């Protein structure tokens, strides 16, 4: 009973903040139907906002307890509701949200596929019960979540002492442990099942968020759900059961990239703040997330060139926000490190002799990444399909910014991974690459899925007509 009450209380706080954020930035309207449909996006936004604030509190030396987390959530809730009410037009502005439009066209295929996805996720959450703690989680993510739930601060050696806790990767950002510690603290349990269930809940929220962001333009069709279904059932998602953080990072990153894609297509309120919040969260989940989020914002800035000055300023502000979200943790690491890292510093990695001597690492990493992303079996079709569609549409359609944004985002993420592996200081680098590529390709795969969902929706004649009318 305590567990259920705790989970309900925790998620009520998170969802309230998320819904208030959507109202404040006009991504949802204060109508019951709209709010219910936006719950997935609200969950992601709520987790991002409350956990980022909690990370900053911890970095400043504060103590995170259940009452403190509740206070953070309530302060954010009040501030966001104040913004929602006090903005010009207030809650009754009547401005159409980006998700408004045609009623969903729910034929039997989308019902079958939507139900299959829902069933898949419910079964995964249910089967998370009694899962033991896998090796990596016991040495990193779960260890940190339980320590945070117990101590409420970063004073433990798990965060500071690489000689005592060698596999804890003290340089990794801590948003996922902060989220997990919240669930553990509100339920007074130290249970891996809860942590894994939280990760599956993020995946479910991701599917719902993408469906919400695209529903007005696409209707709920198989074209939307098919790439998402393939992404959430692909091999890399197995990391969720091991309590790894790659999928958590990927859902924030991919939803943020979708917000950017929708904004590049047509600038509408709320999309850039949502993108900044979600990419800021991705940057605080994993080191790769930091690189991906900043790289994606650079791509978005490039995609905005030629647009009105206020649009470029808005993207610039979002980019600064993403960097600002990543900075506190980096400062903490700089102040308490140096910690051992899988990644070589930029200064060292630019050495020409190192790059030449490590060419075999680049080749090996490229083979491994391609082997994971494009093996021609099942989910191995997703990324090649994404590449082909974006390249083809880039060559033939007049409105190329969206396709260019997605293609560049996907390629820059792959390039970043190749760079990390090429310059990796790991002693047994091939084993390291073999072991980790199954996880590190998660984010590119999820970005490919949301990009395909968005791009394929643009091909429908009525959507094209509506877009052209909007642009006209």
């Amino acid at each position, binding site marked *: 009973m305590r567990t259920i009450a705790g989970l309900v209380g925790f998620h009520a706080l998170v969802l309230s903040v998320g819904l208030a954020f959507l109202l404040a930035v006009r991504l949802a309207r204060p109508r019951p139907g709209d709010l219910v449909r936006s719950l997935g996006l609200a969950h992601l936004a709520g987790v991002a906002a409350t956990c980022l604030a909690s990370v900053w509190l911890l970095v400043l030396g504060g103590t995170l307890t259940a009452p403190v987390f509740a206070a953070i959530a309530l302060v954010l809730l009040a501030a966001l509701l104040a913004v929602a009410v006090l903005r010009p037009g207030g809650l009754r502005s009547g401005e159409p949200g980006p998700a408004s439009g045609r009623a969903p066209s729910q034929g039997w295929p989308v019902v079958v596929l939507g139900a299959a996805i829902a069933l898949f996720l419910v079964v995964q959450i249910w089967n998370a019960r009694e899962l033991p703690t896998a090796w990596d989680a016991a040495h990193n993510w779960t260890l940190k979540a339980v320590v945070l739930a117990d101590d409420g601060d970063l004073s433990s050696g798990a965060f500071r002492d690489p000689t005592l806790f060698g596999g804890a990767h003290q340089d990794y950002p801590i948003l996922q442990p902060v989220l997990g510690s919240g669930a553990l603290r509100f339920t007074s349990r130290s249970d891996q099942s809860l942590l894994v269930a939280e990760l599956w809940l993020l995946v479910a929220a991701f599917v719902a968020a993408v469906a919400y962001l695209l529903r007005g333009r696409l209707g709920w069709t198989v074209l939307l759900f098919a790439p998402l279904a393939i992404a959430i059932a692909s091999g890399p998602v197995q990391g969720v059961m091991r309590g790894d953080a790659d999928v958590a990072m990927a859902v924030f990153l991919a939803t943020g990239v979708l917000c950017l894609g929708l904004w590049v297509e047509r600038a509408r309120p709320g999309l850039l703040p949502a993108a900044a919040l979600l990419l800021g969260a991705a940057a605080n989940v994993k080191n790769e997330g930091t690189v991906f989020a900043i790289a994606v914002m650079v791509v978005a800035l490039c995609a905005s060139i030629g647009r009105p000055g206020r649009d470029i300023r808005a993207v610039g502000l979002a980019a600064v926000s993403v960097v600002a979200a990543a900075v506190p943790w980096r400062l903490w690491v700089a102040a308490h490190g140096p910690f051992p890292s899988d990644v070589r510093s930029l200064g060292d990695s630019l050495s020409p002799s190192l790059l030449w001597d490590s060419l075999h690492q680049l080749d090996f990493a490229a083979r491994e990444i391609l082997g994971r992303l494009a093996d*021609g079996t099942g989910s191995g079709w997703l990324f090649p399909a994404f590449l*082909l569609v974006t390249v083809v549409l880039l060559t033939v359609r007049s409105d190329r910014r969206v396709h260019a944004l997605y293609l560049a985002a996907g390629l820059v993420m792959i390039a970043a991974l190749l760079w990390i592996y090429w310059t990796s200081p790991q002693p047994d680098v091939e084993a390291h690459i073999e072991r980790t590529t199954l996880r590190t390709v998660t984010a590119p795969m999820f970005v490919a899925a949301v990009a395909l969902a968005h791009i394929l929706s643009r091909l429908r004649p009525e959507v094209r007509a509506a877009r052209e009318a909007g642009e006209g």
Partner: protein
Amino acid sequence: MIRAYLESRAPMMATVFTPYTDVLVVLAGLLMGSAAIVALVPGIRASAVSSVPVAVAVLLAVLALPVLWRGAAGLDAVRAGLKEADPAARHNKCFLDKGFGWQLGFVAWLQGRIAWSESFAVHSRTVDRACFQLSMLPRRLVRPDDSPDWTVWIGKFTPELRARIKDEAGLPPEQRSVQVFDESFALIRESR
């Protein structure tokens, strides 16, 4: 340097079946699907290129349910692989993964003797400290020089430790500074 690079590649047997060619074949497959759509759907003839996204849409729609189904089966297999025969092995699984299951009885014994608010250091060469800490939380694992309340000893006892155990043999258990679990497991009180 070129020679070193070539030598590093030497053991690999030359083959056309590489991930690079796999990608090209997958892309060619998608293009062939597009060509088939152009041939079969008259309305698309006017714009052959637009058949590519159509082919992709068809492919993804075909794959979605099978991938979801096989994905669920794969996750079941991973879940089964994670579970231990002993259902009590939750955070303890890492002991078993590394062959340290023989320490679990001692860990349970320690949990009854070290208070939640106390700290401990570990003296051992055969301990996975992260794993040990996870099982002992909220008791805090610290370095020996961080003034721990207790030291956990795993391994052969030193002559000094043996002498200390012998000296305290006549004392009531609660007054002893060294509590012995087994011949190579002990708990040493560092502060009172």
